[in-house]
């Protein structure tokens, strides 16, 4: 009763829309863009994966499980999937190991030096991956500067191109800026005072790193790894150029099936598979985040 009176005496200003209404309104544009630009094509892909491929690039509208069953029974494709995942995980791990010290240093630097370093880290993103890949081809080629240098030192020159090694080297370099930026974004909890506290309590630098710095940077690590893994699985230009047609990965295969063989139903099936892999990666990421907290 008294509440009702109070309410009539002091009118509480209310937004025209409720909290939920406002949120909906704000999210509507991006939701629409996503529906048209992402959801519809994916549904289309899903539908396509149940069509039948005719020779010569023809497609017969039908509803068959042939593509899916064919995939499951073909050891080439199973190996392709496994290979893609393993190579992408390797790339992600190497990118992490190479990026982490840089990100940590960047996190601790300040002022103009920090701005300069940040620009330096981002600058590779300003050139296209194609250009950078050609750069790597020049560097890694059989008579290129790197192999020559190794040969000059008296070692057997390794093959650094047209194999998985080349693909890994190229992609690691291309993905490093993404990893560094993700790490930096996730380093928010790393307070220098907390590291100092560990040291005053008797922790040597290595102990401080394992017990304090690393656990506090796990959110950044998880984010960076998720992003790099997804980018590694879906990249096809670099594997195509640096793999020289000898490295078989999901993304390159999809490209071949869709553009070269014109087998759209199979390409769609593989694409949906990639999405499933991404979904699994996201699930792992969510679990890790929950475990960290």
């Amino acid at each position, binding site marked *: 009763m008294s509440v009702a009176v109070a309410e009539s005496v002091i009118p509480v200003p209310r937004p025209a829309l409720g909290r939920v209404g406002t949120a909906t309104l704000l999210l509507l544009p991006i939701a629409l863009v996503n529906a048209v630009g992402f959801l519809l094509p994916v549904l289309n892909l899903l539908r396509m994966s149940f069509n039948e491929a005719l020779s010569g690039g023809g497609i017969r509208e039908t509803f068959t499980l042939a593509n899916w069953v064919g995939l499951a029974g073909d050891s080439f494709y199973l190996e392709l999937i496994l290979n893609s995942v393993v190579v992408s995980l390797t790339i992600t791990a190497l990118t992490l190991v190479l990026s982490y010290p840089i990100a940590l240093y960047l996190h601790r630097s300040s002022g103009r030096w920090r701005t300069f370093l940040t620009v330096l880290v981002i600058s590779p993103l300003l050139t296209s991956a194609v250009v950078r890949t050609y750069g790597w081809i020049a560097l890694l080629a059989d008579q290129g500067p790197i192999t020559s240098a190794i040969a000059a030192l008296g070692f057997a020159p390794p093959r650094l191109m047209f194999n998985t090694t080349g693909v890994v080297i190229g992609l690691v370099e291309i993905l490093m800026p993404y990893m560094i930026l993700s790490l930096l974004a996730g380093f928010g*909890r790393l*307070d220098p*005072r*907390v590291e*100092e*506290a*560990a*040291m*005053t*309590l*008797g*922790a*040597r*630098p290595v*102990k*401080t790193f394992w*017990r*304090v710095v690393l*656990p*506090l940077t796990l959110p950044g690590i998880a984010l960076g790894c998720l992003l790099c893994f997804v980018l590694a699985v879906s990249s096809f230009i670099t594997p195509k150029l640096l793999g020289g047609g000898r490295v078989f990965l999901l993304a390159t295969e999809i490209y071949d099936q869709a553009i070269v063989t014109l087998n759209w139903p199979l390409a769609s099936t593989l694409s949906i598979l990639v999405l499933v892999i991404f979904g699994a990666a996201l699930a792992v990421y969510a679990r890790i985040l929950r475990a*960290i907290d």
Partner: protein
Amino acid sequence: MMHQKILSGTLTALTDRDAHLRLDGLTKRYGDTDAVAALNLNVPKGELVALLGPSGCGKTTTLRMIAGLITPSGGRIVVGGSDITRMPVYKRDMGLVFQSYALFPHMTVAKNVAFGLEMRGVPKPEIERRVTEALAMVRLESLAGRKPRELSGGQQQRVALARALVIRPSILLLDEPLSNLDAKLRDEMRNEIRDIQQKLGITAVFVTHDQVEALSMCDKVVVMKGGKLEQVGTPVDVYERPETPFVASFVGRTNRLEGAARGDGTVSVGGATLRVPGRPNGPVEIMMRPHRVRLADVDASPAGEGTNRLDGRLTRVTFVGDLLQYHVDVNGAELIVEAASDHGRFFRAVGTPVTLSWRIEDTMVFRRAA
């Protein structure tokens, strides 16, 4: 002559050995300002020393240099006779309670407290026992399983305190460790810190800008101002015999008057003449503690032997619980008199003419630049 030299040599050696922690001309320069300027300080073993000073006077900087977290621009830090100025932080065996707590956000309260013991390789069962003990001391037994972000500011502060104390460091550095606690808890923690520090004979430096804290629990008070030492002494020294007006006004409340000393133990203030200890000459400032001043009805009889007297008019009375503060206008200067509150009854109504009186030895006098 020879004999004297040897004797004074022995004396220095003795004081050196007594000083468990010694700062020799410790300096920290940022750009072209000195955050800490040539600080000299001896802290004997087992003593609790307060670093007292206004915000930004270099207390935290000093403490962080002692802990090894900031490299001094000059000077030395000596502990137990050996120079540790360049020793890495983790070897120093000092407990530091950070002004911002700096708890490990990813560890529970118990893990936070256990960290230092784990680093020292203390066996598991003992760690458990000592952590429980430390948490009981700061009244946080029931919160052992929580993460720092699930604690209030004061609770976090107590975890920080437990974490530093549990390792029983040879030197304990406390940076305003009680600033976020309520009055009652603060009193309790003060006693706990003092007890532990004395029981274990820990040498401790306690940073605070609360003069009550400094006076009530410390063996020695170091008053700092602008990165420099202003005065070092026992709590009674700095309170009763401040060497500078800054110390007088920072440690305890003061009334301040300006006057001209005549060199014969008297000072003319406005139209009145006050007597002061000593025989200063020239422009001076005079200070007295509000609670050492008595308030009385105007009385034409001459001032009693050994007292100073000034007439004024009561302008305001403030009730602060156990005290009443009377604001008295004396020829345009506002003086404050504090008296025990008698059930909140005022001495006289505002506007009444009154006489202030205080003893000559309660008059502090400092030379003043003309």
